[in-house]
């Protein structure tokens, strides 16, 4: 199966997914949606990692660096989601909003 699909397909998919996620994090108003955009970007990166492991590794069994890296990224994503959502809830409590545009305490 793997020989039938070029690496470029996976890379292009990952790039598209990354751009979608980036757009979500740059353009959405809702802080939770911003976090979701970040999750999309992380997933796109993981696709890249796994694809490079699969296509580039000389011995996919012995050298599992791509998989391990992806695992750590997933772990970090989980941590990031937990902290981010906690922050969102805390801000919501104190300022009664999750609109990123209204959260501008540093504004001149």
């Amino acid at each position, binding site marked *: 199966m793997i020989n039938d699909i070029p690496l470029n397909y996976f890379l292009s998919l990952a790039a598209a997914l990354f751009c979608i996620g*980036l757009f979500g*994090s*740059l353009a959405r108003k809702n802080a939770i949606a*911003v976090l979701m955009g970040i999750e999309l970007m992380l997933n796109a990166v993981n696709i890249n990692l796994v694809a490079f492991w699969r296509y580039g590794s000389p011995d996919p069994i012995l050298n599992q660096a791509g998989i391990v890296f992806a695992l750590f990224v997933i772990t970090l994503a989980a941590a990031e989601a937990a902290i981010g959502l906690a922050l969102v809830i805390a801000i919501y409590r104190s300022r009664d909003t999750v609109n990123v545009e209204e*959260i*501008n*305490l*540093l*504004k*001149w």
Partner: protein
Amino acid sequence: MVQNFTLLIPLFPLLAFAIIALLTRSRNRLSAWIAILGVILALALSLGVFLEALAEGAELAVNPFYGAPIVWYPYGTATVNFGWLVDPMGSAMLFMVPTVCLMIFIYSVAYMRHSHTGKDGHTIHEDDPRYARFFALISLFTGSMLLLVISSNLLQFFIAWEIMGFCSYALIGFWSFRGLKEHHIDDAQVGRARAASIKAFLTTRVGDVLLMTGMILLFITVGTLDFTQMFSPDGLNNMLLGEPPIGALQWPTLIALLIFGGTVAKSAQFPLHIWLPDAMEGPTPVSALIHAATMVSAGIFLVIRMYPLFVFDSQTGGFSMQTVALIGGFTAIFAAVLGLAQNDIKRVLAFSTVSQLGYMLAALGIGAFVAGSFHLITHAFFKALLFLAAGAVIHAVGTNDMLKMGGLWRKMPITFLTFLIGALALMGIFPFAGFWSKDEILLEALRLGFFSESGAAPLVQFVFISLATAAFITALYTGRQLFLTFFGKPRDQHFYDHAHESPVTIWVPLAILALFTTVIGFWNTPFAPAFTGYVGEAGLVGLPVPFEHHAFDQLALISIFVSLGIAFGGLFVAYFIYGFRPVGAGQPDPLERLGIIYRALASKFWLDELYGYKINLDGTARAGLLVRFVGLLSRFSYWFDRTIVDGLVNLVGWFGRIMARLWGWFDKHVIDAIVNGSGSVTGEIAGWWRTMQTGNVQNYALIAVAGAMAFAILFLLRSFT
């Protein structure tokens, strides 16, 4: 070691002054006792110093008691110190001043109580309304005199000198305002006292200015005002450095003359003697204080203190000592003549004081230092005695006019006796104090003028003749005073009835002073010149002055007979005119037969009208020609100051204001504009620039992405081309 406490001597009377003035002025008797206590303490300490000085003997002249421990103020690398200096003459003054002052103080306790007849015919005694103030002022007077005597430098001396000037002003004018209760003062007296105090103050001020000028020049040329440093040979020689100030007049002469100017005013020498007779308007104890112990003595003491300067000047060819001798000799006879025609018992004494001070200065001027100094001491005692006795008479009789007295010796024998002793001393009759000191002066003048080895000196001969004549006239007017006051028949029955013997607090001081007057002369007889050995042996502070001392010789014997003869001659003439045929009631003075001469004498040669300040009996006063000229000058100066000087000043001020406005405009519109402009431009830019800080995280992220992309594109362009 009492000498180390010398500086405390003036402190006691000054402290008494402060206490009375600040605390006890409403308590008359207490104030008097505080004042007396202050003088007693000062006297005790002074006597301690005096005895210690006596024990030193002639050594003291070489090594005087000296200490200047209190740093007053520094100038440059040196300092002016506040301290004390007691040389033999200073110690003699320390004995004389507090003793006489104490007598005057005790005397004042009773004298300042006035008696008058009340409405119901009873005699009422009451204190003077400003009784405590009187004691405060005489304490200040005494304290400053003591400070002057012990001063270690001329500036300190000058301060005490000026305080005395103020005290004399305040005390001469003591009755210059009148409270409701004061029956013994009439309006005329108030006017006279007021005018007299101003006259005394302003006249002495002339001398003070001269003295201060001399002091400044002295400081410039010598570089110090400390007596011991000043009178070291180096200090005096400093004065000869540099160009002479005016023509051939050398620095020492000029300075000595300026300082002598202070003496002329303070010691009432011609031509500034005019204030002293009018100073009789003060209470009698004040007159005694001024004439005996303090004010006028200070003037003589200044010459004594500065004597090395005068001697140095005459050694280097100056004429300051000749000037002193000339003015002293002239004043001695001039004032004596004026004393002849006075009817006021105190004014006679005033002129005799002027005359006697002339004696002292003449003696100092011809080089008879010891004789002049000794006369200062003896004169203080017998003149205080005379004034206090005359005051007792005035107090008892109620008038100053001798022509209204007469025959008083029966009424007040003790006062008469003490006055007699004082009068004999003044005339110079054996064995009283005046005889010895006056004889000494005449002897010195005789010796230096006619029998000097260096040839005859015309000036000294003039001085001798002048002094001898003055001695004769002195005996004459003193005799006149005696006969008019105490002998003959009462010329005014009312005053005679009013008279009574003095109370004990008045006659005890008189008796003590009379005792001193009797014995003090034996301190320096021609046979045993103890005072000469003490004061004159080794010269003066720092500068040995060659005094010629002569053993008792034929000339001294002759001199004794001459002076006794002159004195008895004067007394005899006085008896011939006034005692042989006493002046009856309402009769004019026999001297009035002299006509124009008498009128000239009575009006004091019209000097008051000429350049002084004439005070009339009714209390009005009239300025003399010179004073009026000065008044005109000052009015012109005022006009000049107001219109021209002020005009210039105002013009400068106006110009300054215009310039300031111009500058203000420039500052406001140009400099401020630059400053504010730079600030607001910065503010504008910052206000526009800061909007970058949106506070929106997504903005930042977008910019970060754009930046990253920009770098990526750059990188790609480089790697693919």
